[in-house]
């Protein structure tokens, strides 16, 4: 965030458009580069959460799986706060939603 962005925010003004352009580009390029459409990403997110939650109890509301791009390398970033570990993993079929 730049000084101008901060002042704009404090005054409740719309931020300068360059930072909006940058954010929109970064998001759209992460998807373009990975060739994953939002539907597939959502499906993958659900399955990842399913697998992880068989081993640990996670906070599903706080969990986040997204694509991030830096230097033309796109990474799948998962941020899953763990409530507690399970002593024995749940069987594959019994995964909680």
């Amino acid at each position: 965030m730049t000084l101008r962005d901060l002042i704009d925010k404090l005054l409740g003004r719309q931020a300068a458009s360059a930072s909006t352009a940058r954010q929109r580009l970064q998001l759209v390029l992460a998807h373009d580069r990975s060739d994953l459409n939002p539907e597939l990403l959502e499906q993958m997110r659900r399955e990842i959460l399913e697998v992880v939650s068989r081993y640990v109890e996670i906070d599903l509301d706080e969990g986040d799986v997204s694509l991030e791009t830096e230097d033309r390398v796109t990474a799948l970033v998962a941020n899953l706060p763990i409530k507690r570990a399970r002593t024995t993993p749940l069987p594959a079929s019994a995964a909680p939603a």
Partner: protein
Amino acid sequence: MSRTILICSGKGGVGKTTLTANLGIALARQGSSTAVLDADFGLRNLDLLLGLENRIVYTAQEVLAESCRLEQALVRHKQEPNLSLLPAGNPRMLEWLTPDDMQKIVGLLEDRFDFVLIDCPAGIEDGFKNAAAASKEAIVVTTPEVSAVRDADRVIGLLQTRAIEPIQLVLNRVRPRMMANQEMLAVSDVTDILALPLLGLVVEDEQVIVSTNRGEPLTLNGSRSPAGLAYNNVARRLRGEEVPIVDPSKEPQGMRAKLSRLMQTKIF
């Protein structure tokens, strides 16, 4: 060793052909024999920007069909005889050349010229694939706009899978005041996002329109206009000279500019 450079952008209208024409003339004036190949045969315009539209008789197609020699198809620029134009085909052509044809024709040019610049058609379909098949290096042209940067990114991905190296960036039609006011993507935004080395930075310049009206590239008459100087610098860098790139939005321009630079300070 001849260098074959693809000039591409993905999106149309960002300045590929203007760059090809100016860069071709600049390289020729600086002493490198240069050929410019218009790979956009359907909507060819390189002849027009170079003022050579009335002098085209044959194209690469006739050379490949062996109905004329390469020397007959090459259009030599009168004021800058170190530069020659070769159109890939004519707009009435129904069938397009194949990637093999393109490689053959570029091979012939490489035997005779130091630089072969290929003006790529917009898009990422057959025209692009043909042009890319014959290229060893690439210059990606983009403007600081979301649509142009996005399309450039697609093209860069395709070039990388073809092992075209190096791929360098020319940022065209920069408006320094808008950049300083943060109403246009910054130079570093574009270079960070596309992760390419910056070969040149060209500011928006009305003289470009004047020069295309006349069919005389800015680099032809040693124009001191900002875009003309920028194109010349691109040519010098391509020839291996070290020419620093100045970010025009960071140039000192008095109190207003100082204030707007202060506003750009990253606070967190």
